[in-house]
């Protein structure tokens, strides 16, 4: 990918906003996909909509694209009102000037690669030579230089995804919508494409909305991550914020924090709260301001912030028994029973812990955990 053409190929884009979007499906509207959903998407940023299937993330994306008509609400793209239920106004998809990368790639079997890339330019009124130039530049940019004459069935999965990306970007759309674009790729390729997407965005930031259920993609690619649940926003913030300070059990579990420890508030200060748990007193930070000493609460403990060691239990350590160990290559995951609670601990140590070995568990030095709202 050449960076010289980066800024001229994809520049900026526009900001978007949706407000009050609702959508129900089914004969009697019994399936509520979106529930009064409002969000703004800043220009030039990547907003990731993260959530399990059925949370409404795809409905938001398809509403913005104009492929789904919401039951109520308003959508603006740049300074254009694309949809306004109250005013009875709806722009068809072809007039919204967006690009979209589909999960299935949605490539046309009867067209070659160059025809795909040229397709969004057909309605632009550009001269044939200008179109040809832009197609060639875009092919180089997505790493498909010289492959314009290939047909889709002659391409690998990763190459197909690049065609899809090139088609979405070539028309200089106001925003690019990604609908789980990597979930059809195998693990290795998915890793590589994730890094390439990141590189693309670094070279030329563009407005993008990225829908996924994969927290790793969300963390890597998002300037901002919006966790969705049942048609509403559960939490939003920077990737670091979401991962380090999840508000709810739902978010914590969804971003991959399996250890939710019950505890009791021991001490509250301005900066942090100390909570008594099975692992002893833990330092934690939460979002709620109305806590009182002695009340019950839950702490989300990331697997990498716990250590496990063989031998006698010292100060600040708690005794546990290994249930099993899973070796994963670069790290090991140890499942430990601590006073009846099962803890998942991820460690880089080479040491292997056999089942039912007694071990000492301790929080990492200076670790501050997330105190959940619920």
């Amino acid at each position, binding site marked *: 990918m050449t960076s010289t053409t980066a800024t001229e190929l994809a520049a900026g884009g526009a900001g978007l906003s949706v407000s009050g979007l609702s959508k129900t499906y089914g004969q009697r509207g019994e399936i509520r996909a979106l529930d009064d959903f409002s969000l703004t998407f800043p220009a030039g940023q990547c907003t990731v909509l993260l959530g399990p299937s059925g949370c409404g993330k795809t409905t938001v994306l398809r509403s913005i694209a104009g492929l789904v008509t919401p*039951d109520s609400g308003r959508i603006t793209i740049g300074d254009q009102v694309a949809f306004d*239920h109250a005013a009875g*106004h709806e*722009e068809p*998809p*072809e007039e919204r000037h967006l690009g*979209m990368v589909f999960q299935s790639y*949605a490539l046309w079997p009867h067209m070659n690669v160059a025809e795909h890339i040229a*397709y969004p330019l057909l309605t632009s009124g550009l001269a044939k030579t200008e179109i040809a130039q832009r197609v060639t530049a875009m092919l180089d940019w997505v790493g498909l230089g010289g492959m314009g004459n290939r047909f889709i069935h002659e391409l690998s999965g990763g190459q197909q995804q690049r065609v899809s990306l090139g088609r979405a970007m070539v028309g200089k759309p106001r925003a690019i919508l990604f609908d789980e674009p990597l979930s059809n790729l195998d693990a290795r390729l998915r890793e590589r494409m994730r890094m390439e997407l990141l590189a693309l965005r670094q070279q030329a930031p563009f407005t993008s909305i990225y829908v996924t259920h994969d927290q790793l993609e969300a963390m890597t690619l998002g300037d901002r991550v919006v966790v969705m649940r049942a048609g509403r926003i559960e939490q939003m913030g920077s990737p670091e914020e979401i991962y380090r300070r999840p508000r709810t059990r739902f978010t914590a579990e969804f971003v991959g924090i399996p250890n939710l420890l019950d505890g009791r508030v021991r001490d509250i200060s301005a900066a942090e709260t100390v909570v008594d748990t099975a692992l002893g007193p833990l330092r934690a930070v939460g979002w709620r301001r109305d806590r009182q000493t002695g009340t019950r609460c839950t702490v989300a403990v990331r697997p990498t912030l716990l250590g496990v060691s063989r031998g006698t239990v010292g100060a600040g350590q708690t005794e546990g028994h290994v249930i099993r160990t899973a070796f994963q290559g670069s790290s090991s995951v140890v499942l430990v029973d601590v006073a009846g609670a099962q803890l998942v601990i991820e460690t880089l140590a080479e040491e292997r812990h056999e089942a039912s070995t007694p071990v000492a568990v301790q929080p990492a030095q200076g670790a501050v955990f997330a105190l959940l709202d619920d």
Partner: protein
Amino acid sequence: MLGAGLRSGSWNRAALSATAILSILMVAYPVVSVVLRAISKGDIGTEFTLDWIAAVYENPRSRDALLNTLIYTAGASVLSMVAGVGLAFLSIRTDLPGGRLLGLMALAPMLVPPFILVIGWVAMADPNAGFINIAASLLAGSKTSLVNVNTMAGLIWMTGLFLMPYVFLLVAAGFRNTDASVEEAARVCGASRLRMLRTIILPLQRPALLAALLLVVIMAAGDFIIPATVGLKARIYMLPSLIWQNSHSFPPRPGLASAQGLLLLIVGLLCIYFQRRALSRGARFTLLGGKGLRPGLFPLGRWRYPLAAISWLFVLCSSVIPLTAVTCMAFMKYWAPNALTASNFTLATFKYILFDYPQVWPSARHSLLLGVLGATGCVVLAIALTWYVIRMRGRLARLVDYAMVLPLGIPGIALGIGIMSTWILVPGGIYGTLWILLLAYITAHIPVAMQFVGSALHRVSTELEDASRISGQSWLGTLRRINLPLMGPALLGSWLLIYVVILREISLVILLYNPRTIVLSVGLMDVWANGFYPELAVYSLLLMVLGLVPVVVLGKFARFSAA
């Protein structure tokens, strides 16, 4: 939901809804019209009477025809089912020599129009001059009449041959798609091959078998060409041929004809209802094998060669033998016992039919025009309707989906009665013009077109359309640039199929044409009435060739499958 008209681009929804409503009317009014005509003394709107309906059973000739139709339908259905299922199983699932070729040849009768079959078997099995009887006489040394086509058995034989490929087609797909693992599982569970056939293979095909049976019952009961030619010659009356006679002979009794048509219509609609139910339940039986291995072949052992001989003889009887007989007949000066000699060879009949017979080119022009317009009309209408059903959905869409199956259950002659009885009431309407024939063709063949186009549209994922819309193309632009190219081969396939069928169609238009609008296929009945067989042979060959030319030229670009 936004109201219609609020959405930009909702004009296409409105236009498609209007098309859908008109199409429902198009297939529904003939049914209503047949019913009304059967209970009216004269044309629709005259005094109510049940006399016609009573006469279906009380009139002796009608009662005869009813009984004959029953025997004929039962016989032809059994023959075609046994032959179709047997050939499908033997050619696909056993080690029969030449199974693959046998499977292809079993479908050949679809390319050979039924009247070739009729004339060919008259040439083969006429009691006096049939090739088989002549050969038998030569062998026996005295005049021997081994077979006679002018009997109920002869009629059933021809119809069974004609219907066999339809059974084969419906059943073969099931035999071919069986996943080996299902059968291996049965074998591992301890079932013998025969037991597996009885407990696994045939039960899995039950919906397809039922669907095939109901289809051939409709086709046999409504068949016109065989009862109206050899059947009338042998004085074996059947409902479709009697309907034709009752509306043309003197005194005409269109009321009785309608009542008889109503009976056929009821049987047809019942069959199509149960057939749809069988097919939709069949979805339950669909095996999601995908990567499954080809199932193993049944060894036939010492039955291998005897079964191969019988199968091949039967398959040849259904296409190659009658076609050869017709071709021989076409080059004869006259057709009589022992006429297959060099001195009897002539090209004069070709010259007469192609250049001197006054009716042939005007009617051929009509046929070609109606074939092209009818097939195009069906495909275009089917695109609009399937889009409405599959992409737009909604209550009306579901109604369209159901309604468009109706014509499959209406025998051609009954549909003809329905269309005629309605348009005869409209002064200055399309009655007596080519347009009424076109309307009849489109009404009759819209179900087939919808099956082809529907399965083709199902193959185009909506994301492919979405991607085009996002890329700036309107709905129409997307249809033109994405859907039509992707569906092209299937559209062409259905076009060709409908063209071929329109060209050979007789029963549908036999009540609707007049001397100014006669088409080539109906003209065959006049040539038959003249009784000069070499002319009949040449005429039917011409009709077959005109039908097959576009198939031969364009067939390789087409996809002939509605699965």
